[in-house]
């Protein structure tokens, strides 16, 4: 019965993810139709707030051209949103009859009469406002300026005056827009101006803030709850149950235990998670009076790993058994590290290999060499592309989030277990959002999808 429920749950989850995947990809396919040319209603509203909107009448700078050069309409220059006050943005509706031959050039001057410095140019087929979505403020369920997100509006960002000289905050800059076909160019008569301003809150990340605060609060709530009721249930993770078995086997065989923290730096969360597990493993190794080898790829990880193992031995009441030479620096190069570790595996023949943290192409080289030596292998990584290699070659694999849950699982501390509970609640919330979002998108209602798009 238990197995049946487990099987049924797995099928439901996979079907949900499949449905979601299909619905979102379908939505992405149909979301960007070629909209009619004219800017109306919402699109014009999106232009509000710009420092200046000029008239539609262009002035010819050169003699009557033999080639007709179309000019864009609704041109605005304004402060670049959500920046440190060093950017301006030029936006305009595409010119009637834009062709591939048409190019736009943006020039900046200190005054309305120049002198003009050419900042950059682009063909009429590029620099669409919808491709620069990240510049626009995203709020809870909608995105300001979304109306202008069709391929009717061009957008050009000015952040420096050439030679890496940035725009200055609070200084007014004048901008001239030129349209050209071949050697024939036309300028706007009116020169636009705007002043870069510094912002103190990135409105484009509002949704991220809301989600982070809500999720953080949920975790803290469950941690507080775990203080009152420490008997929390946590599902069985075979890979972590096997830690004691692996260490015990190594002790019986009189062989060392090899522990790898991955190839990333200490700034990476998988490395931190691997170091957390190292602390628990070191304590058990000290208890079993076995020996531990920890070759490191990063100098900072090396110093931290030494402290962790030392503390593990001290906590186990065996500080004298700690051997600082067993945690050493191998190399900072990825494949040299793989070669070095393979050498240790072949020479020292560890009875148990722990491969925790982040890995890239060297994952299979390490795990397959370890499998050849007959060692019991426990791997854990959040590098999705390396998971199949570990699953194939290791006895146990901690998949994705299990790597981060390992420390809580091994310590059984209520406070850390509480954070896992909070994490699970967030997962339930996400699953509900996925199911509801999939259904809504299927019926043409896309606000949940917009919310998650704004998160990105």
């Amino acid at each position, binding site marked *: 019965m238990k197995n049946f429920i487990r099987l049924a749950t797995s099928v439901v989850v996979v079907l949900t*993810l499949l449905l979601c995947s299909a619905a979102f990809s379908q939505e992405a396919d149909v979301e960007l139709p070629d909209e009619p040319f004219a800017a109306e209603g919402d699109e014009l509203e999106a232009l509000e707030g710009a420092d200046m909107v000029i008239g539609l009448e262009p002035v010819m700078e050169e003699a009557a051209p033999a080639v007709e050069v179309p000019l864009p309409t609704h041109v605005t220059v304004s402060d670049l949103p959500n920046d440190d006050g060093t950017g301006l943005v030029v936006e305009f509706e595409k010119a009637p009859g834009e062709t591939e031959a048409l190019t736009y050039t943006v020039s900046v001057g200190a005054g309305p009469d120049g002198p003009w410095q050419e900042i950059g140019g682009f063909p009429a087929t590029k620099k669409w406002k919808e491709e620069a979505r990240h510049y626009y403020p995203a709020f809870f369920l909608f995105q300001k300026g979304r109306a202008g997100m069709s391929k009717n509006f061009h957008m050009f960002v000015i952040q420096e005056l050439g030679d890496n000289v940035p725009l200055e905050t609070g200084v007014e800059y004048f901008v001239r827009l030129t349209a050209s076909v071949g050697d024939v160019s036309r300028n706007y008569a009116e020169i636009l101006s705007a002043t870069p301003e510094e912002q103190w809150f990135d409105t484009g990340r509002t949704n991220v803030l809301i989600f982070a605060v809500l999720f953080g609060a949920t975790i803290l709530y469950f941690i507080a709850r775990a203080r009152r009721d420490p008997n929390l249930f946590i599902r069985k993770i075979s890979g972590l149950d096997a830690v004691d078995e692996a260490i015990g086997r190594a002790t019986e065989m009189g062989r060392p235990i090899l522990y790898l923290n991955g190839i990333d730096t200490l700034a990476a969360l998988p490395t931190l998670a691997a170091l*957390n597990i190292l*602390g628990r493993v070191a304590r058990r190794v000290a208890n079993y009076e076995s020996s531990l080898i920890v070759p490191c790829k990063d100098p900072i990880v090396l110093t931290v790993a030494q*402290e962790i193992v030392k503390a593990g031995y001290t906590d186990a009441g065996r500080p004298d058994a700690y051997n600082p030479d067993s945690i050493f620096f191998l190399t900072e190069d990825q494949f040299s590290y793989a070669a070095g570790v393979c050498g240790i595996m072949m020479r020292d023949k560890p009875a148990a290999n722990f491969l925790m943290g982040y890995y890239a192409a060297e994952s*299979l080289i390490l795990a*397959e060499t370890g499998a050849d030596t007959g060692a019991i292998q426990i791997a854990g990584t*959040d590098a999705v592309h390396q998971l199949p290699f570990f699953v194939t070659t290791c006895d146990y694999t901690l998949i994705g989030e299990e790597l981060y849950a390992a420390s809580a699982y091994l310590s059984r501390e209520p406070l850390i277990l509480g*954070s896992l509970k909070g994490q699970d609640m967030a997962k339930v919330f996400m699953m509900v959002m996925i199911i509801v979002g999939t259904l809504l998108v299927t019926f043409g209602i896309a606000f949940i999808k917009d919310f998650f798009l704004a998160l990105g």
Partner: protein
Amino acid sequence: MQFFRKQFPVLLAFVMGMLLFVQYFVPSKLSKGFYEGFADWLIVIAGFAAIFAIASLLHYHMGKIRKRVLGYGFSVITIVAFIQMLVLGFVFHYRPGTPAGWEYQWLFVPMQATMFATLAFFIASAAFRAFRARTWEALALLLAGLIVMIGRVPIGEFISPHLSTFSDWILNNPNMAGYRGILLGVALAQIAIAVRIIFGIERTYMGGGD
């Protein structure tokens, strides 16, 4: 002294964690400067840690040579290579055309490539082990693997034009669904571990135990 060993690192992790969290939402010059300064500090700390790393490397290999342990010859090669590269680098700099540059280009890079190339053989041996259909799961893996492999080479198109379509379907649907599920769990777990570290609930990484 106890304060600097126990409480101060937790306090520091909390203050820096919160500051960097706030910094993510503030695009101002001050915030940008703080982040760049923080990144510079990381480089400085890494520079100092490199001294420890070199000391550790020399100590480890010298110890192996002294004790004549199995494979100590490799340690001799490591130390000789390290010292000569250091001397050549200091004397001639690390530019293309210099002895150090020559060694990098014609010794180091090919050796790296050789190590990477061994991956092909490891993939073959791992695939052989994984594709033994002992259980229903292994059989499913074998079938999916075969379809994807054959569907992505010209002979697959020759056998049936539907094979490549089916191969793409497997990659873009069941595979992608599993991939996204794992990523979602990882993202939530990363936020949870960040909260645990910032609030000092998880302290094992500091070496202080619980």
